């Protein structure tokens, strides 16, 4: 409909069309250009803010034993539902206490510890296993490849959460068992991606050259193939880190993840949801908000990382910002 198109809009469209011919990805350029330098800054600001938030959270988690005002598992009914400091409470429980007299701040800090630790552990475990399977599959090819990828296909179709719940119920929920179960459930993405990169790289001249001068397969893999994996894997690992934190929280929320005396946000949301839905709802909101913010920050960081690790993207952004300045938009 013509009335939806102002003349200026049509001009802009031509401009983006031309760029489309050159760059092949018109919308990102036009998005960067319309957002202008400001949009560019905002995006970097978001990435920066996320990094800052996560660093602070990681430090808080690391030094939780020093920072926490109390043992997160020490209940004390005499301070049940104590008010936070800003509501006239005392500094011994800065964010108040819940109905069982657990110190809220201490539980939040130790919850961060659990979430981040599980995220790192699972990414390390699943990543290592997935990369090994992917390299073997891509490098060996043939029957080995078919079997391994068949395994991946079958396991991808498994109802992962149900099986994770079942396994946790059977072996018990500690940080380590939950981490291993989540890793068993989530290594397949790494295997697929690694295999894809290995397949595309191994036909390239530099790999053939290395093979021709007599490098051992191990040397070819570690020196020539794996370095190509760093960029895609870094982005994937960060995204998986966020997914794992959510998965652990969901399991713990269901009561089929980490259990007492473990402290986790998911478990605290469930406890408060059962007990305080009609009472002090802040007890649900604090851990929920912290969990959401953590995952949001990781997601933002991953998109920032994707741009920073891709030289072409970075160049495009730079070019877009320069044309903006020159154009005075």
């Amino acid at each position, binding site marked *: 409909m013509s009335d939806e198109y102002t003349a200026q809009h049509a001009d802009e469209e031509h401009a983006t069309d031309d760029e489309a011919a050159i760059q092949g990805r018109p919308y990102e350029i036009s*998005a960067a250009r319309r957002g202008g330098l400001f949009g560019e800054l905002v995006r970097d600001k978001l990435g920066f803010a996320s990094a800052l938030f996560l660093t602070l959270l990681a430090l808080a988690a690391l030094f939780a034993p020093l920072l926490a005002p109390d043992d997160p598992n020490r209940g004390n009914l005499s301070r049940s539902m104590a008010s936070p400091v800003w509501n006239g409470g005392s500094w011994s429980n800065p964010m108040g206490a819940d109905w069982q007299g657990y110190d809220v701040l201490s539980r939040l800090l130790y919850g961060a510890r659990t979430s981040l630790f599980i995220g790192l552990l699972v990414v390390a475990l699943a990543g290592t296993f997935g990369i090994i399977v992917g390299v073997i599959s891509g490098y060996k090819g043939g029957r080995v490849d078919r079997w391994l990828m068949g395994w991946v296909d079958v396991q991808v179709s498994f109802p992962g959460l149900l099986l994770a719940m079942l396994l946790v119920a059977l072996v018990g929920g500690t940080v380590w068992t939950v981490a291993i179960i989540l890793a068993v459930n989530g290594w397949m993405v790494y295997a697929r991606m690694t295999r894809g990169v290995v397949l595309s790289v191994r036909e390239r001249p530099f790999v053939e050259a290395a093979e021709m001068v007599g490098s051992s397969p191990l040397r070819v893999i570690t020196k020539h193939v794996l370095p190509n994996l760093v960029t895609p894997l870094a982005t994937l690992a960060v995204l998986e880190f966020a997914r794992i934190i959510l998965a652990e929280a969901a399991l713990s929320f269901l009561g089929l993840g980490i259990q007492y005396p473990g402290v986790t946000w*998911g478990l605290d949301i469930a406890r408060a949801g059962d007990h305080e839905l009609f009472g002090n709802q802040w007890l649900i909101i604090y851990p929920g908000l912290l969990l959401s913010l953590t995952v949001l920050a990781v997601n933002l960081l991953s998109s920032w990382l994707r741009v920073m690790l891709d030289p072409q993207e970075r160049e495009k952004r730079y070019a877009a910002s320069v044309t903006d300045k020159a154009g005075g938009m």
Partner: protein
Amino acid sequence: MGRYIGRRLIQGLVVIFGVTVFVFVVTRLIGDPVKFMLPLSATPEQREARRDAMGLNDPLVQQFGRFLRDLVQGDLGESSYVRGTPALEVVFDYLPRTLQLVAVGMLLAIVLSIPLGVIASRKPGGTTDRVLTTLSLIGLSMPQFFLGYVLMIAFTVRLRWFETGPGGFMNLVLPSICLALPAVGRLAVVVRSAMIDELNSQYVKVAKAKGLTRRRILGVHALRNAGIPYVTLLGWEVIRAIAGYTVVVESVFNWPGLGFMASTAVKNQDFYLIQAIVFVVAVMVVLINIAVDIAYKLLDPRVKLS
């Protein structure tokens, strides 16, 4: 096409068989099906006698043979939590409410995500676009159970618009929204980028040059092609909903569906019921996967199924 579907069905059988064997082995090796069947006061001798009576002390291979023979006859054993009822019967009692939830939730996701994605694709980088992208990112980052509590705090506790728990259609509203919202974010982003790609393609320019109305270009040509990645993701969303998200959503809202039953069965170590639930879920996942592939083919005749 027929051969392709046949091959996919065989692949699906492998998946179902794999899941079934996995649950069987894990529950028999690590778990103790008798643990929750007898009262706490039962002596070890009584427990051992029960195990003997149920054939749980036979070699695993023999047990598995018996299990397969029963499975072929549609018998997955008796639930120990819902006492004296065949496990499959329990599953089919609870399944309809989960299917209701998934159907309403996914319908809501479709109805919201397509217009949102199309609107955002009109002006990439514009305000609407940025608001949408931000919202979908927040939807992705918010755990579903927390979203559920936020909805409940707002609409059940404060405004008192909806009740939650078992009940009629009104009680389904909040769980459906909770199930739909994260999916809306993911789906709308796909609609957006697919529409941008399509609107920049040659055939849309030709259609414009021929003087076709914007509505016709959008509705008939671009949207149809943008539908291909959309259908794939939608199938994935339905699978995830059935095989995972509903467990969480139903637990938050106390909606008595299969997901709620699944976590109850696991907590009570009702292994026969778990086996039946996992089996039925795996069958549904396989069938939906095949349905998505066929839909894919119907939308895009260029796709060769292989």
